């Protein structure tokens, strides 16, 4: 046993290709059991580098699975700045999971080969929760579903307020394993639609002066509870992206909210874990649809983002637009509407991490390039590029309430996730964007100090601390919301008489700390791509003293300084 562990450790030191490392195909979607197996296999293939753990049980008995990935020889995961990514917060936004797995696969297999990847795992940590809303994602695969359902937490809600829970959901009436759409032919003049003359699989709305002979009846289902409504109380609806603590609003303000913030374990497991992992600097949550990089705050009524943080977001977002062609970097509220209690608001406002939601994928079927995808074009894509895989043709069905109807439409795994042959490019570009954020995690370096011997036994040190990346060591929001302590600078080996932050080294202007100079709090830390110089006036003897800079978000580093 011991020998095999040693052999493995030896093997991992170079992190070269492992025989047992998984090699997933990226042109398909992975049901939960396979995702979990992949996570276990990565952990087994890269022992010490990959840690798999459950953060707790979820609402329907699953687990919140977390992968922690870093080079263990360069420091423990929680001591390094970190990027956190997650997928499938909305269970139907399925390929967020595969996007995270692609990222995991890429960084592990390219460590030691590609310098940026090597640097990333050496100095930073990647936290990954591939399946946030794990139970509903499972259901999307195993039970009849639609592209939009199931989406929310597996928590029964009495949507129609009749005292019964989830008693009238969608029904797979024709038993084909898919929940599609219902339409009905009616007498001419009783309808709102007619058959598309070019393609009878499609309905078109009639003109104002035209008579229709079709009506659309919505998603496949019956009136299960006899209340005169169809599909009005399905499985769900607590939206895991509307339940978080920062900016939470109750359900009458924000649809999909829970009774109180973080009521359900899917979101709470993560919030509690991240509350004790404040080294997370970046949060990227994968959703679909529309190719968007979304920054917070979620609602226009919330406090606007400070200029210092906005500058960083704007920089990373604009770079994202270049790395992810077709993506737009936008403030979420005016584009997608106000939302409260989103996870990105929470991780920004409560953890102090730069947080974005990423909407994957956009319509691929614009054959004529008019920036508009017509139903005919979607059908052409189905016919020519998937050979009809996406669409279930209309079939007659005798409905208990509507009588003679037709059932048919697009399958649940179409539209929102790209077809397999298109998926890998988007996973790859997004994985590179994660690594790009990893590159811009705060990266501090203690530069050569200026040591002035004022007189025998008395020294004045000016110590520049450089951050050569874009993300600051303390975000503006950390100060604004008092999330955690500021960076802390100390000197050991000498008595500190006075300390402060140098505002102008040439004119010797220093903002002194009034109390306890031996513990200098560096308010605001070191901004992105800048230097902060710290002043210490110390009583000491010629020899070495140690300067330590301790940052919750940028790690802890020390340097020996020689007193002449």
């Amino acid at each position, binding site marked *: 046993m011991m020998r095999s562990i040693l052999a493995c450790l030896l093997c991992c030191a170079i992190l070269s290709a492992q025989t047992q490392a998984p090699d997933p195909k990226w042109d398909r979607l992975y049901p939960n059991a396979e995702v979990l197996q992949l996570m276990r296999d990565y952990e087994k293939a890269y022992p010490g580098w990959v840690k798999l753990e459950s953060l707790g049980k979820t609402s329907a008995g699953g687990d919140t699975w977390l992968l922690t990935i870093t080079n263990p020889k360069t420091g423990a995961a929680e001591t390094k700045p970190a990027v956190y990514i997650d997928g499938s917060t909305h269970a139907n936004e399925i390929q967020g999971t595969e996007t995270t797995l692609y990222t995991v696969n890429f960084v592990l297999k390219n460590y030691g080969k590609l310098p940026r990847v090597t640097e990333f795992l050496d100095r930073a940590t990647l936290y990954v929760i591939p399946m946030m809303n794990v139970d509903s994602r499972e259901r999307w695969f195993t039970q009849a579903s639609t592209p939009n359902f199931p989406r929310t937490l597996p928590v029964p809600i*009495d949507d129609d*307020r*009749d*005292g019964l829970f989830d008693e009238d959901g969608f029904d797979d009436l024709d038993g084909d394993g898919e929940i599609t759409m219902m339409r009905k032919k009616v007498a001419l003049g009783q309808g709102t639609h007619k058959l598309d003359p070019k393609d009878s699989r499609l309905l078109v709305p009639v003109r104002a002066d035209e008579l229709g002979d079709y009506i659309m009846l919505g998603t496949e289902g019956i009136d299960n509870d*006899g*209340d*005169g409504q169809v599909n009005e109380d399905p499985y769900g609806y607590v939206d895991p992206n509307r339940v*978080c*603590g*920062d900016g*939470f609003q*109750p*359900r*009458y303000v924000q649809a999909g909210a829970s*009774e*109180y*913030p*973080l*009521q359900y374990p899917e979101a709470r497991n993560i*919030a509690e874990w991240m*509350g004790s992992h404040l080294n997370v600097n970046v949060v990227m949550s994968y959703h679909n649809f529309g190719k968007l990089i979304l920054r917070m705050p979620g609602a226009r009524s919330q406090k606007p983002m400070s200029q210092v943080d906005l500058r960083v977001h704007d920089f990373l977002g604009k770079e994202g637009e270049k790395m992810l062609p077709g993506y737009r970097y936008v403030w979420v509220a005016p584009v997608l509407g106000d939302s409260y209690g989103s996870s990105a608001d*929470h991780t920004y*406002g*409560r953890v102090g991490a730069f947080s974005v939601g990423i909407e994957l994928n956009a319509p691929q079927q614009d054959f004529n390039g008019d920036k508009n995808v017509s139903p005919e074009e979607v059908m052409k894509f189905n016919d020519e590029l998937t050979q009809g895989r996406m669409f279930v043709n209309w079939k007659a069905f005798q409905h208990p309430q509507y009588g003679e109807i037709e059932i048919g439409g697009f399958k649940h795994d179409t539209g929102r996730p790209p077809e397999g042959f298109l998926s890998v490019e988007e996973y790859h570009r997004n994985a590179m964007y994660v690594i790009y954020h990893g590159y811009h995690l705060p990266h501090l370096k203690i530069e050569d100090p200026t040591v002035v011997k004022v007189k025998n036994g008395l020294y004045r040190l000016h110590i520049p601390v450089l951050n050569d990346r874009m993300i600051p060591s303390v975000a503006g929001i950390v100060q*604004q*919301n*008092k999330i955690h302590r500021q960076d802390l600078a100390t000197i050991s080996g000498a008595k500190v008489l006075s300390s402060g932050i140098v505002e102008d080294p040439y004119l010797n202007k220093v903002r002194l700390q*009034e*109390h*306890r100079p031996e513990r200098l709090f560096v308010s605001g830390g070191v901004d992105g791509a800048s230097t902060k110089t710290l002043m210490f006036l110390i009583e000491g003897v010629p020899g070495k003293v140690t300067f330590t800079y301790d940052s919750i978000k940028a790690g802890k580093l020390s340097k020996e300084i020689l007193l002449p």
Partner: protein
Amino acid sequence: MRRADPLKGEKGKFKLMAEGIDDDKDGLYNEDPAGGYRPDRNFAHAWNEADPESGPWPSAQPESRAIMDFLVKHRNVAMAVVFGPANNLLEMPRGSAGRSGDIGSMKVTVPRNIANFTGLEANKEYTVDEVYEVLKDSPVARAQGGLTKEAVVQLLGGGPARSGGQSAPGGLQNWLYYQYSTMAIELDVWGIPKKAAAKAPAGAAGDALTLDKFEKMSAAEVAALDDEKLGAFLKNINAPAMASAAMIKQGVASGRMTPAQMAGMIRSQGGGGAARPAAAAAGGGPTTPDEDTIAFIDASAKDGIVAWTPVTLPDGTKAEVGGVDPFLAVAPNESELKKAADVHADALIFMAGKLAEVAIADVQVKALGSGVYEVSATAANNGFLPTATRLQVRTRSYLPARLTITLPSGASLVQGNNRSSNERITGSGGTTKATWMVNAAPGSRITVSILTQNAGEDRREVVLQ
């Protein structure tokens, strides 16, 4: 201790802080004591994102979550009373946006001296709105640039018996009302009473004006009176607040009324003595909480204050330690507590007696022929309060009142469904109605039910014939 007022040319001479030393020598005293979060700051409504005591996020604490987990499973809670630091009865809750609540529906009585010149009835109960309607267009109100409802309450000698404070941002009461959305009230059970009225200093000084002296004055003498002196006189005789010195002078100068006539009128309205309620007659206007505290200590809590004792802190700072017992304002003595607890127990029972209570009021069956029956049902709310507040209608956090029909097998509805919902049945006999067409064999038994979460249920079985 009181704050220095720069407008009076004062400069602060003391710093005031809780007893302790700067253990970590960072210049801050007692800034990181044992314990951390305050449960009454950790609820989601108006939660303070930048207050370290409000918790890492709303609902993070087991204490706040345990209460909410229980409540969301018990939607039969129709009313909640929080015994906390605020008193919502003494001070209208302002909500998180700081808006003032409308005190218009507050009940007030009108003292006789004010009743006489306003045409209102003395000692009859009015709402603030009713008195406001009478007074808002009076010349004096117009001259003052408009009247507020708060000013009406003050004029009537009302206002809170002591200050009530506001429910905390992130507090339980706020969550109960705005998010859980039950009727919720916070009561502090007991507080230091307002300073008892001092004797009005009428006639204390030899040259002070009295009603007797005023009565004998000529118009010219009144016109020559010092405004301040005349004002003090008006206050002493409990003249209405709007009877200003200028107004009296004008009235006498215009010749419409002599000082003697005025004195007669004041006497006929019960003025001239200490007729006003005590709080308004104190002469010094409303007292500050500190004045109340000192008065309370003097009167009934001699141990409630610790004499200031000089000390020298470890860093050499000279300080004095002493002041009011921090628990004085929240912990009454045993007999006071017993009294307060009794009053609150009675109030709870009284309020519980006012809750909504639904019942089936009437079920009518009409045979239409061919085995079709028209069933009309009426349910009533016999309680005083409605089945749902206006906010609950908006939040939809409770199920609506549902009037339902249950049919035996073989029977069916000719149209519609078996349920009629109403978001709110008003109190004191408000009703909701539903009509069904039932296709059933004669002699079938049907059941009509009224169902609510927080105002009970009732059922009635009827025979179709």
